[in-house]
């Protein structure tokens, strides 16, 4: 309690969840103090989330990675583009904990800078794909009129081969975007847009299926009999109930986006070669795989562990958001 009332009469009984309240058949006056204060939903969710060990570890690791890429440059002030040619190809040491590459650039600094790009791409592309997928799924599931056309659109996108499409997009728009808003932001937008626009389809299909089933449930009919308009019907009754599949899609989506970005960088079509991402570090490392395997292992492990952490986190979050599972 933040604000303490002056008189003690109004203070709700603490820990009143276990207080037995006599069952009153028809409305005998109950003391106001026996009523539980409205429980904070966020608190319930957190309490349940805490019980999921994997999710807790995942969240911990994800926060660690986030802090590392955001605050890392303060603690490790080496520039990712600084070339110290005399120290090139050195293994892990105190001056370069992850070693250096063939030009003598510090790999730890490059990992930090690369992680920032990779995570930014992953999170934004996931958000975009999730938004598009949920929007199209809900619209086509809820409004019968739109169903046919939106689902055929989804099929159309599913039939597009992802990588060739991204390659064509890169080739077509890279230079004009680079000229318009600068090389890094231009490529970032292009990559995010490319990944987002080509990965919303599974979410849309899953959401549509769930909405179709939900629409026939009686509580939707009950809301209709109350006179709830379509948009509040969707936000109040449909969306919260499709949260579980959306959550799963989201966590898989982050992983997918990071991997697709890595693949693009790996093919040399993502960010410029001097601009590190986990994917491009991985590609650079493969040339020296036999002599310096750690150059592949570090970015590879970063990608895998982040993806794993996010998946566990999503798993825990999905459980925590479902009131039927909560409290078990």
């Amino acid at each position, binding site marked *: 309690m933040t604000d303490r009332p002056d008189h003690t009469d109004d203070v709700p009984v603490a820990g*009143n969840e276990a*207080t037995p*309240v006599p*069952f*009153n*058949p*028809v*409305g*005998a006056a*109950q003391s106001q103090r*026996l*009523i*539980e204060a*409205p*429980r904070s939903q966020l608190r319930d969710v957190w309490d349940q989330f805490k019980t999921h060990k994997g999710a807790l570890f995942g969240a911990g690791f994800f926060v660690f990675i986030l802090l590392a890429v955001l605050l890392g440059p303060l603690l490790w002030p080496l520039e990712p583009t600084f070339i110290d040619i005399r120290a090139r190809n050195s293994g892990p040491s105190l001056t370069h904990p992850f070693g250096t590459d063939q030009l003598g650039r510090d790999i730890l600094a490059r990992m930090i800078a690369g992680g920032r790009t990779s995570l930014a791409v992953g999170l934004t592309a996931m958000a975009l794909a999730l938004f598009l997928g949920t929007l199209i799924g809900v619209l086509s599931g809820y409004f019968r009129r739109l169903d046919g056309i939106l689902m055929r659109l989804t099929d159309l996108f599913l039939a597009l081969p992802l990588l060739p499409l991204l390659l064509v997009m890169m080739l077509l728009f890279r230079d004009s975007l680079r000229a318009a808003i600068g090389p890094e932001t231009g490529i970032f937008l292009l990559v995010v847009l490319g990944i987002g626009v080509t990965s919303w389809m599974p979410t849309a299909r899953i959401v549509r299926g769930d909405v179709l089933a939900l629409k026939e*449930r*009686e*509580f939707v*009919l*009950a*809301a*209709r*009999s*109350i*006179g*709830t*308009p379509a948009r*509040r019907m969707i936000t*109040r*009754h449909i969306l*919260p*109930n499709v*949260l579980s599949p959306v959550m799963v899609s989201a966590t898989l989506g982050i992983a997918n986006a990071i991997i697709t970005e890595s693949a693009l960088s790996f093919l040399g079509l993502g960010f410029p070669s001097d601009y590190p991402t986990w994917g491009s570090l991985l590609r650079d490392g493969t040339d020296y795989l036999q002599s310096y395997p750690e150059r592949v292992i570090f970015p590879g492990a970063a990608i895998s562990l982040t993806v794993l952490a996010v998946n566990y986190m999503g798993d825990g979050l999905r459980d925590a958001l*479902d*009131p*039927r599972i909560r409290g078990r």
Partner: protein
Amino acid sequence: MLDAGTGREPLVRVRDLKMHFPIHSGLLRRRTGAVKAVDGVTFDISQGETLGLVGESGCGKSTCGRAILRLYDITGGSVTIAGRDVAHAGPNELRRMRPTMQMVFQDPQASLNPRMTVARIIAEPLDEHTRLSRAEKTARVHDLMDRVGLNRAFANRYPHEFSGGQRQRIGIARALALNPRFIVCDEPIAALDVSIQAQVVNLLEELQDSLGLTYLFISHDLSMVRHIADRVAVMYLGKIAELSPRDDLYADPLHPYTRALLSAVPEPDPEAAAASSRTILTGDVPSPANPPKGCNFCTRCPSVMDICRRIDPDFREVAPGRHVACHLYDTTQDGRPTAAPIPTRQGETP
């Protein structure tokens, strides 16, 4: 007109209500027919009255209830509730009428959103139709919970934490939130234990007495309908076969289908059970997509006549307050019945 027992203006007036669901088939999804779930239903319900609507599964009872509240876009006919035309109202007009008419659903588990707390579920109608402050809403929700006999301390719980009977109370509280005048109870007790059924029915009766509610009580449980209803309508294959005051209907059923339904009610007294002869219907209910020509019931009727297979009987008043759609009660030009009325069920005669 049809409410002979009371002289008051009816609250709910249903005329020739039709609800047909189209059947699409073939490659081009052409419309090839229609399921006539409700096919020309006419009745009135006066203020404060309970009309029981009974019939076997699939006869269109629930569809009828939902069509009256315009949860479906009806095919034809008119519905007037509290003097306002529900059947043809536009979306905004309909939304303004919603507070007058509410519904209690069959499956209390399915009719409550599992992601909302009880307080939010009960407050949803208030959110939609009133401009109360948060504190006023909470007070109203607590008041409603008291009314239906739910502990106020449960306001922050989720529906899955309750028993079936408690969930149905939540559904009733939600239906009451806007002070409706007319409530459609769509088999509110069918999914409950027998011990809980009585509680819920008594609650509905208490609420009716204290709030002056009008019910359309849909059920397949004839004994429960006998307990709660003032008048009873028997539906068969989308049409009303018989509509009579409760006591008359149970004492002297007119329509052969009503007779068959009533004879299927288990008799607790073994001696009376042995003495009564059961009317056992043969065959299945015809498909509502392809109802028989003539009377709907002619394929299974024990006292079927030639005319039944040709002409659909009118739904007429044959005695004060008693309406039936059956050729057995047709009168010729000079007022004599065409066929002698069948004597009452033997189990009923002393």
